[in-house]
């Protein structure tokens, strides 16, 4: 992922290069149900980062040797589309995308009632169509919405965001220049209902105090993003005042 030369400063006049405050999220838009063929799907646009997610499942687990007798096999694939990065990326998995796929699966698994779907597979495909940092967290946010959209039983949605250090300042939701040239980067994912953290990574150099501050910053932002995830799901069903009952005939005659 080639980048242009480093900017002189990442923080100018106490503002970030895109004009944001240190604890300000980029504008986020989440849309549920964008891929008709999928069982569940979602699109996230976070600043310039754009990611699509499709969930297929639970479905038959093939190849059979991946099937587990007591729960579903959660199969996550994070992929960067060739034209999503400044220099074209060769199609196919890279070591980076394989690692990210795994940590995303570990971040989502605690939230899903996998044990209710023994012997099956849940496929989660996350494709980055435009990359501007924070992709693994945005992918988790979209994937949670897509899983819920698919009607898969979950304990909670998973929310995620990355924060870090740029020019000595602690900043929330880093974008490309901050991600490339900053001093540290810390993605975090959590289930807001219980406050349990399901993903945590850190890259760079941070003191204990900084880690604590960044964790608090991330958690606060995750709760905000959680509300957006819920709204996106509700919006899809456009509720009206007088909704006819959903319960027509549960075990009705069929002919």
């Amino acid at each position, binding site marked *: 992922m080639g980048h242009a030369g480093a900017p002189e400063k990442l923080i100018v006049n106490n503002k970030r290069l895109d004009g944001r405050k240190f604890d300000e999220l980029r504008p986020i838009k989440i849309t549920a149900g964008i891929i008709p063929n999928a*069982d*569940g799907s979602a699109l996230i646009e976070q600043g310039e980062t754009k990611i699509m997610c499709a969930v297929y*499942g*639970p*479905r*038959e687990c093939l190849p059979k040797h991946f099937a587990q*007798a007591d729960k579903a096999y959660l199969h996550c694939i994070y992929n960067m589309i060739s034209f999503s990065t400044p220099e074209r990326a060769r199609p196919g998995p890279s070591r980076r995308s394989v690692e990210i796929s795994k940590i995303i699966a570990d971040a989502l698994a605690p*939230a899903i*009632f996998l044990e209710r*779907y*023994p*012997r*099956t*597979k849940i496929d989660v495909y996350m494709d980055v169509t435009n990359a501007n940092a924070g992709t693994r967290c945005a992918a988790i946010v979209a994937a949670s919405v897509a899983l*819920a*959209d*698919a*009607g*898969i*039983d*979950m*304990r*909670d*949605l998973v929310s995620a965001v990355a924060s870090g250090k740029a020019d000595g300042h602690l900043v929330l939701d880093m974008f490309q220049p901050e991600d490339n040239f900053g001093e540290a980067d810390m993605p975090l994912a959590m*289930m*807001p*209902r219980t406050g349990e953290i399901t993903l945590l990574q850190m890259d760079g150099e941070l003191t204990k105090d900084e880690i604590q501050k960044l964790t608090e910053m991330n958690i606060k932002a995750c709760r905000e993003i959680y509300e957006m*995830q*819920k709204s996106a*799901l*509700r919006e899809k*069903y*456009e*509720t*009206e005042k*007088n*909704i*006819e009952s*959903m*319960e*027509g*005939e*549960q*075990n*009705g*005659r*069929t*002919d």
Partner: protein
Amino acid sequence: MVETTTEKLYIKDRDIVVPGEILAEGMEYLPAGKAFRDGEKIFACTMGMASVKGRVLKVIPLAGRYMPKRGDVVIGKVTNISHSGWAVEINSPYNADLNIGEATRDYIDLAKTEMSRYYDINDYMLAEVIALTESKFVKLTTKYRPYRRLSPGNIIVVSPTKIPRIIGKAGSMIKLLKDNSGCDVVVGQNGLIWIKGLPEKEALVAKAIKLIEKESHKSGLTDKIKALMEAK
């Protein structure tokens, strides 16, 4: 000493709820359907619509793949034939088996007849789920009426959560579709629907069903469907 319990209801009947959303607090409330209890609180575990009937808080799912239940009537497709029966796909993460003894009330003499005479690969059938093991191995039967092989016609797939709406109260919606189109319509609780009649009527019924699927939770749907069916 008087013990006070916190008792609070956060949602009302017919609210759309999302996974992890809190429905109520207090041990007096009872979770049902896709609602679950965690300590004092009750949460939804899928995308659904809340139903509040007294103390019972039920979440009716709005999405999700078909999970087989005993007694369900389903439409399935034969994917394999073995000496003991047929492997049947039922639009579920779980596949089903139709044992040779459950196919028909007639005695099948394998020395004289081919199993494919009853059901061949890629044939569709209307069947009932008679058994379900703990790891969800599914057993079907087609021994009794109206279960049978389905002849060529139109088949569409809808979300199984919309099937009750497509059938309608006391079968009213499905009757509306059949009467207006002159088609035979068979609905599988697993989301498959078979339609047989004049080709343009088969297409019209399919279109109507897709509309019901899309707008199942909106008001005025029955009138919309009536208008669509009477238009041609």
